[in-house]
């Protein structure tokens, strides 16, 4: 489903975020990207979300070279993608319901369909009862779960997450990772960047280790 083909990203200033990366992820897989700080995990995800463009090489998604998509095709590309961020990026002046419905409003769905899907997504992360709260009124773990609900509400085939447990204590981290695993169980391909090695160890599954912008190893 995803193929990085000799991808190099050189940032302005000459520093390479990733260098000659080759990586393949099949549909339905759950892959952890690990590595030290500065290893290039975020850069890899940015290339998938078209927040950055590859300097060399091809980023292929379902056989399409997304690295060369024209700027006007970016919105549609992103709508097919679920994204979870370390700082969850919820809008503080909107309710949980409104935050989760944002991708569907952008996609132009009708109001009734939006309400139905938002409630289903909130139910999946166990926060249906908090739909009219503001994000500030939720705990950090709950906020991250709202972020995950927003990422899956548009039913993406691929979900990418950058340090989704970065701000959470070990128990909450495990809870979030179990949530990802459950969503992966219904067929969503997942690419999760984390430096929480202990947690990844505990969960098992495929693990890609980055070092200095290159793939230095894999574990299964």
């Amino acid at each position, binding site marked *: 489903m995803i193929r990085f083909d000799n991808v190099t990203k050189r940032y302005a200033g000459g520093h390479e975020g990733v260098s000659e990366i080759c990586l393949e992820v099949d549909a339905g897989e759950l892959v952890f990207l690990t590595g030290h700080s500065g290893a290039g995990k*975020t850069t890899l*995800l*940015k290339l998938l*979300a078209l*927040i950055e463009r590859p300097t060399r090489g091809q980023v292929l998604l379902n056989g399409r070279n997304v690295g060369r998509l024209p700027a006007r095709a970016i*919105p*549609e*590309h*992103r*709508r*097919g*993608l679920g*994204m979870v*961020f370390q700082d969850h*990026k919820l*809008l503080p002046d909107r309710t949980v319901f409104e935050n989760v419905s*944002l*991708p569907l409003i*952008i*996609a*132009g769905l*009708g109001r009734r369909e939006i309400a139905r899907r938002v409630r289903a997504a909130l139910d999946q992360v166990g926060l249906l009862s908090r739909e009219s709260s503001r994000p500030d009124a939720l705990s950090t773990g709950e906020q991250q779960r709202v972020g995950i609900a*927003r990422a899956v509400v548009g039913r993406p085939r691929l979900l990418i997450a*950058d340090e989704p447990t970065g701000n959470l204590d070990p128990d909450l981290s495990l809870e979030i990772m179990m949530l990802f695993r459950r969503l992966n169980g219904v067929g969503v391909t997942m690419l999760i960047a984390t430096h929480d090695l202990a947690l990844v160890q505990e969960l098992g599954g495929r693990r890609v280790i980055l070092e200095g912008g290159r793939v230095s190893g894999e574990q299964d």
Partner: protein
Amino acid sequence: MRLWLTRHVQNCLAAMGRLVQRPAGSLLTIAVIGIALALPAGLNVLVRNGEVLAGGWESARDFSVYLKPGEELAQAATLAKSLSANSNVDDVEIISAEAALADFQQSGSFEGALTGLDNNPLPHTLVVRPRPEAPASELAELARELGKDTSVDQVRLDTEWVERLNAILEFVRRGIWLAAGLLAIAVVVIVGNTIRLDIENRRAEIEVAKLLGATDAFVRRPFLYTGFWYGLGGGLFALVVVLVGLAVLGGPVARLSALYGASFQLQGLAGSGALTVLGGGLVAGLVGAWFAVSQHLTAIQPKI
């Protein structure tokens, strides 16, 4: 299609809702826009009133033809007859020297001065009343021709100052267009700047929307509607300012008009004028919003 319309209506109302949420700031912006629009609109009303006044005076464009002293009354009659044949002339009245003298004596004020004289110093006079539709240029030509007549001493055309007033009005009218143009640019800048701040304040929201796959059109729309409301609000404010101004001036004008025994009515802002103000406000608001949006929205790219 219905969904599309619903979304636009929602955007439109949401934009108004945001303005209503911060009434002080919004009203201030709307007031500034309104005053900028009211200025040319108000001046335009003044000039229109000036035109009506000038038009009223222009219809009284009679001119007097003084014959040389010593010319016979018969000569005056001949001249009057030929003038009456002119298609621009409505009526010619002959005031003989004797009648003029009698008039003077009756009015009293010059009695002492005139009784001492042996013979009548006044000439025969023709008062020419042009047709209302006669063009000013042809009348001036006619007056010049008459002046060349050997029996004519001088021709007095009393319309020069009306023409001068018209020239001034034309000058002021151009000035208003110039001012309106400059003030329209000012409105565009005001709206553009307000919306630039608005964009800055909602940066987080814009970034998230772009991350979630919002198109440029989607991100742009709420700001364009904000510009729309600013423009419309400013236009309405301008209309209120002009109406209040007219109400304030209405009393004194009526009194002045009564003093002169004239039936001058203060001209208001016609329907088309009101529409121009509203339309101008709307266009300026939208253009300002468009500038702000096209300059600042593309600069906002999401980071993770």
